């Protein structure tokens, strides 16, 4: 559980540069475009596909943040053996958002998109994609370390 806390915190920290830095730069005939995670959401939104934009925003940006925050919170409570308020809420959030933890899928999608775009123009990797990859790996380790049963027993004991 301590390990899960550490990895979740690390993932939260890497999530910041992953969202602030461009993932890739695409250029055709001298024109170029920087590309952040949020740019795709904007693009879909402006093309009239608001539901899809919202879906991408939720699953690639919002859900990982909330999920990692609640996992770290539950792990912190367990590690410090202190029943802080909203422990139950945090645990239920972590449970509910587990299937929405889609950053690893996003990381793979980045790789595929680079491959796909290479036939269309020049694509350059940017540090942002490495941060996304780092976040994805750290999140997966945190999920593996997070002892669901143990957390559940602890949370339910607080009632």
């Amino acid at each position, binding site marked *: 559980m301590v390990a899960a806390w550490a990895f979740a915190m690390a993932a939260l920290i890497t999530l910041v540069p992953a969202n602030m830095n461009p993932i890739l730069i695409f250029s*055709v005939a001298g*024109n170029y475009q920087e590309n952040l995670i949020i740019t*795709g959401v904007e693009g879909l939104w402006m093309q009239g*596909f608001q*539901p899809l934009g919202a879906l991408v925003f939720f699953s690639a940006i919002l859900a990982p943040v909330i999920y990692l925050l609640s996992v770290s919170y539950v792990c912190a409570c367990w590690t410090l053996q202190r029943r802080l308020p909203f422990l139950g809420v945090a645990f239920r959030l972590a449970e509910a958002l587990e*299937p929405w933890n889609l950053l690893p*899928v996003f990381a793979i*999608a980045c790789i595929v998109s680079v491959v796909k775009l290479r036939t269309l123009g020049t694509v350059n990797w940017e540090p942002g994609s490495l941060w996304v990859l780092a976040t994805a790996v750290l999140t997966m380790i945190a999920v593996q370390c997070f002892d669901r049963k143990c957390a559940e027993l602890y949370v339910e004991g607080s009632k």
Partner: protein
Amino acid sequence: MTDQVRYELSKALTLAGIILYIPANFLPVMTITITGQVESLTVMGGVMELYDTGLVPVAAVVFLASVVVPVVKLVSLSWLLGLHGSDIAASRRMNVHGFLIRIGTWAMIDIFLLSILVAVGQLGILASVQAEAGALFFGAMIICTLYAADIYKTHMIWQQPLPKSQ
């Protein structure tokens, strides 16, 4: 939420997923315009294009994630729900359910791919990527199957059918 409601909801979502699967795969998900050439791609078309450019491993990943996973999910969900309440292959059903939850999210790769391509393809006349209606159906289908698998809890596999009320 009672188990009966969960079961009914899961059935409804699976059925919705099956219906949405058809437009999701036959309508184009995006239109790519590069230097005047316009090309509409369906989900399968995107895979074929990757395959044609010689990138077999990448094509295989996308094929698995966005073509095989949804079919496997829909078929095995129907199987799980069809056998609900019976005691046939209960432990196997439990394994299948766990597997479903684990692979479930990979179909989202297509939506993320679209989002990245749309963001990149905003260079005006030179290159543009436009999302198409198929992507909406595809996204809806993924959400339906995700929830259908999530809402049906493992312990429900072991339940005996409720006695029929007269």
